[in-house]
């Protein structure tokens, strides 16, 4: 049945100046990009070097760029929300807009900013750290990226075509069902998350296989850098949690487009099952977001304190313990559903238990610094800022986990403050620390410290100004997701302060971007490949690393191999010897992953607007690409010895 609310022409004509503005700016930006690419004859370069690449380092760069763009997009949403909330009874944004904006803010921040940021780091660092030439499945890796990319396109065009989703990043049924929320907005949410979710599962499989099966000889699991360990824990969580997202979104989509009754009020549907299943994914998801940051901090603390990480074994153990427990706490997101007291008790205690291994990590970091020599470079600065911020956020998490207390915090600004404190103080700080840390390895130059410090201080001060007042607002009874509030409840002052903080953070972000632009021209070149006096294998390579990474795969005998060798003056042992070089087996570039993403995009558009013919075309494309790949006989090639020798000589390593 063709939905009557969707006319082909109505999609673009909304009568809203904000949206016309967005329409126009997107059109202009697209024209500008096409123009530049054509003028400088860069199309072929774009295709050959980027769109068809299967090199984990390049894929990492693409993820990184996307993540920063999405931080800007969702950050702008945040500034708009804070502007609307600065004073009571404002009409800067109406409820329709506000609802769309907080929904896309949350969704984009988590799924299209934090996730790709993490994938960027995984791609950039893991193979280099474990002494591998690429990931286990480079072709799948490219597919994962393009699925993410096209899913991000899908959610971002929703604002200009057809309307954004507006039921929150949690999108609870039945509010998000077709009865209460007709139109394509929710479909955009469902399809884009579905598509990027499939990509994420691919990434989880890929990195688990990479790390378990492709470590350099000698690198037993207990000699592996902690960042790689954190990716093991993350990948396990992805593997066991994301299928729940796939299912719950699919079921809601089926409800919406096919009129089924999983989560409807009528015909026996059960909306609570949506909530339940959403959080089966949703809770592990927030640990998927934090564990890689933990890995990053472990690397940085050790490097910049010039000291072995404290309690390596309990660091590993606590990572695994966190990922295990975090699978048994999901119901703490709906303590107030009135489930049995024993249910609430169980999930409350399980949630508090997560704090124990997390605390162990905090103390191990502190004691890594103890008796070290702490260098205050940007990565370390973000790490030091992380510790108090995240600890406080984690503590308020434990307070939320006390079920009866949560009856008073739930869905209030107390909760908003909690999760921003862990998401920003934990995940985002971690991602930024990692960006400064691995930037020279990826691009061959360092980011300038001066501007970076401005960004750092603005962002930090802004953070506390913005979010600490929100705890109090929560206790004063202010609910989340209100587009406006009355005066007279005493909420005005704190909201105003919070808004000021948000703008200070925005300034911080501007400095951050400026720092990158500035450093591209003026940044210090990294000629040694080891600007931080690093400890792990990636710092034994030139910056940027050659595309086969290691001319000769290193043998590993201990944790922090590179650092220990340097201490003993034996760093030459990690340089290749001409006689050891063999032809190197590499995967060929391929355009199919890109087309694969495109085909899924077509499927997505088909479902969003309920144009089933389009969806079928997309599916046929997916099937055709799968078969074409299956019949492909030689998807790889060998780099001859000469070429490797040549490259290494040019790099001065032979």
């Amino acid at each position, binding site marked *: 049945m063709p939905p009557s609310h969707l006319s082909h022409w109505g999609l673009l004509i909304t009568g809203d100046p904000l949206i016309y503005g967005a329409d126009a700016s997107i059109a202009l930006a697209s024209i500008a990009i096409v123009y530049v690419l054509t003028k400088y004859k860069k199309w072929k370069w774009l295709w050959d070097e980027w769109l068809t690449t299967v090199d984990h380092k390049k894929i990492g760069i693409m993820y990184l760029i996307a993540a920063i763009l999405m931080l800007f997009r969702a950050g702008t949403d945040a500034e708009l929300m804070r502007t609307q909330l600065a004073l009571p009874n404002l009409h800067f944004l109406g409820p329709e807009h506000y609802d769309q904006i907080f929904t896309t803010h949350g969704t984009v921040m988590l799924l299209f900013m934090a996730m790709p940021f993490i994938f960027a780091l995984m791609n950039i660092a893991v193979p280099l750290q474990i002494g*591998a*030439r*690429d990931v*286990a*499945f*480079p072709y*799948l890796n490219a597919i994962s990226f393009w699925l993410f990319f096209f899913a991000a396109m899908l959610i971002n065009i929703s604002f200009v075509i057809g309307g954004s989703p507006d039921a929150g990043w949690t999108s609870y049924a039945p509010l998000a069902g077709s009865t209460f929320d007709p139109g394509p907005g929710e479909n955009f949410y469902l399809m884009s998350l579905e598509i990027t979710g499939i990509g994420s*599962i691919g990434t*989880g*499989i*890929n990195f*688990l*296989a990479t790390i*378990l*099966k*492709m470590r350099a*000889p000698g690198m037993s699991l207990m000699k592996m850098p902690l960042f790689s360990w954190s990716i093991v824990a993350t990948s396990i969580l992805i*593997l*066991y*949690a*994301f*299928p*729940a997202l*796939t*299912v*719950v979104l*699919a*079921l809601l989509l*089926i*409800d919406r487009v*096919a*009129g*089924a*009754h*999983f989560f*409807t009020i*009528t*015909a*026996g*549907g*059960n909306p609570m*099952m949506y909530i339940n*299943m959403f959080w*089966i994914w949703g809770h592990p998801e927030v640990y998927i977001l934090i564990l890689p940051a933990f890995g990053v901090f472990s690397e940085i603390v050790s490097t910049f304190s010039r000291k072995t990480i404290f309690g390596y074994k309990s660091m590993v153990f606590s990572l695994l313990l966190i990922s295990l427990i975090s699978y048994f706490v999901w119901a703490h997101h709906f303590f107030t559903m009135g489930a049995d007291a024993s249910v609430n008790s169980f999930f409350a205690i399980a949630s508090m238990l997560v704090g124990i291994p997390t605390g162990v990590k905090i103390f191990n970091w502190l004691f890594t610094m103890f008796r070290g020599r702490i260098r205050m470079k940007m990565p370390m600065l973000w790490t030091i800022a992380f510790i108090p911020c995240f600890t406080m956020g984690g503590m308020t998490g434990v307070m939320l986990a006390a079920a009866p207390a949560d009856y008073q915090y739930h869905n209030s600004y107390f909760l908003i403050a909690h999760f921003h404190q862990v998401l920003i103080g934990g995940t985002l700080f971690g991602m930024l620390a990692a960006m400064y840390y691995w930037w020279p390895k990826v691009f061959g130059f360092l980011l300038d410290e001066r501007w970076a410090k401005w960004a750092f201080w603005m962002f930090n001060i802004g953070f506390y100004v913005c979010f600490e007042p929100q705890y109090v607002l929560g206790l004063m009874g202010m609910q989340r997701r209100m587009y406006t509030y009355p005066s007279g409840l005493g909420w005005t002052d704190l909201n105003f302060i919070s808004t000021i903080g948000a703008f200070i953070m925005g300034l911080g972000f501007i400095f951050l971007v400026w720092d990158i632009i500035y450093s591209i021209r003026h940044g210090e070149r990294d000629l040694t490949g080891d600007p931080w006096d690093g400890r792990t294998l990636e710092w034994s390579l030139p910056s940027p690393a050659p595309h*086969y990474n290691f001319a000769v*795969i290193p043998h590993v005998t201990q944790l922090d191999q590179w650092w220990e060798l340097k201490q003993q003056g034996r760093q030459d042992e990690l340089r290749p010897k001409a006689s050891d070089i*063999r*032809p*190197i*087996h*590499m*995967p060929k570039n391929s355009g199919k992953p890109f087309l694969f993403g495109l085909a899924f995009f077509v499927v997505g558009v088909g479902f969003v607007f309920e144009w089933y013919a389009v969806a079928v075309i997309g599916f046929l494309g997916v*099937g055709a690409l799968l*078969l074409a790949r*299956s*019949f492909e*006989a030689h998807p*790889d090639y*060998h780099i001859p010895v000469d070429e490797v020798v040549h490259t290494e000589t040019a790099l001065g390593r032979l």
Partner: protein
Amino acid sequence: MATVIEHAHGHPAHEGEHYVPLEYKEKDDSLKVFGFWLFLTQDMVLFACLFATFVVLRTHTGNGPDSESLFDVKGFIEETFILLTSSFTGGISTFYMRKKRAIGTVVWLLITAALGAAFVSLEITEFLHYISIGATMQTSAFLSAFFTLVGTHGAHVSVGIIWMLSIVIQILRRGITPALSRKVFIVNLYWHFLDVVWVFIFTVVYMMGVIH
């Protein structure tokens, strides 16, 4: 292999004194087998969610029929035995593949695919029948969950059939290469996995649906 080639994906395949099946000879292939195991674990969780949904909604019949009045015992017994048999025949094709016997592999794969097709057609008939008596996905939560769970399994089986046929064509063209032996092994892993899922559909959906 004549020259030692270092792989992007790990170290060269090593020849042990022990017997190593063809699909494990090349590092790339053994990695893919492992990757596929990981895929199966996530698929397992996916089905678990569908099962959880079904169990929660199985009595939510709205104005529609309940399972007892709907299910046809003989029908699902047939489906079950066909699928169990196909799992066995798939296993035999792996056996021949490991013996590098192309024809045996192809024949048993074809038998497996044929049984799969028989299974799918029975299922489609069953679905069409339900729809003809007005028991559709739109009727009740129970039926939404039923069609989705069973249908997802059926869709998996259908994909498996196409996949097997594509492998048969490739074997006929190239014989049993390491890459193809890996594909045979993987498609059969997939197939056995679907058999396990069906055993649970058989138990949780059909058996529990007709016993009171």
